[in-house]
């Protein structure tokens, strides 16, 4: 289930929904929540503005979820991503994955958020509490992390 919306989401209700759907089959649920933090230690964020590409966002995230389900033994993941003006400490993104064995949920959940960061068409604009504004630039570390999922170094446990 992939949802892209402006309003806030209820992570607890979404988690409950996934548990309900898993019936007695799954015993592990891993969730990731990303929320607005200060841009840097000395640069407090006032508002984070998220622009997005409607339609492509949903399709790209769905593809990422399908890939995760084909690689690991999990139920259908839940992903919610917000756009628009988000304030300090508000939730931005939520990923939840349930599986019989915990390793599958951990890997699928981390893969989804890593891949989403480099492929889902969202762009963040920081508005600092001092008034300074700028578009956030993609971190090389994020692209490298996604590449590692597709080309793991030899010797890495799966």
């Amino acid at each position: 289930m992939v949802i892209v919306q402006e309003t806030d989401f209820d992570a607890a209700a979404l988690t409950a929904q996934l548990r309900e759907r898993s019936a007695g089959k799954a015993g592990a649920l891993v969730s990731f929540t990303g929320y607005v933090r200060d841009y840097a230690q000395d640069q407090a964020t006032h508002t984070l503005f998220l622009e997005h590409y409607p339609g492509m966002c949903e399709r790209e995230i769905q593809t990422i979820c399908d890939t995760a389900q084909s690689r690991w033994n999990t139920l259908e993941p839940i992903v919610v991503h917000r756009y628009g003006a988000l304030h300090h400490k508000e939730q931005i993104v939520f990923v939840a994955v349930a599986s019989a064995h915990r390793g599958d949920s951990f890997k699928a959940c981390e893969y989804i958020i890593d891949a989403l960061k480099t492929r889902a068409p969202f762009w963040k604009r920081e508005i600092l509490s001092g008034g300074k504004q700028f578009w956030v630039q993609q971190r090389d570390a994020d692209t490298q992390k996604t590449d590692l999922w597709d080309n793991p170094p030899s010797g890495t446990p799966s």
Partner: protein
Amino acid sequence: MSGTPIKVLYFAQVAELTGARQELWPIDGPLTGADWLAQLAARYPQLAPVQRLKLAVNQYHVSPETLIQPGDEVAVFEPVTGG
């Protein structure tokens, strides 16, 4: 003389610099993303400082070698920063 246009979408900083969010752009026939990016740079010299421009065609990420066809939806943007 120009053929069926493509629909171009601009996002984030690219939209700010072009001053547009979308426009129709006539093309004479299929051309590569790289060739079209050259046309874009000619029309909007203010995009020059942007280090990395990415393309999506019909809502799929593509490389500069990909052919753009008349009628396509082409999006231009900097590397994404969601999550």
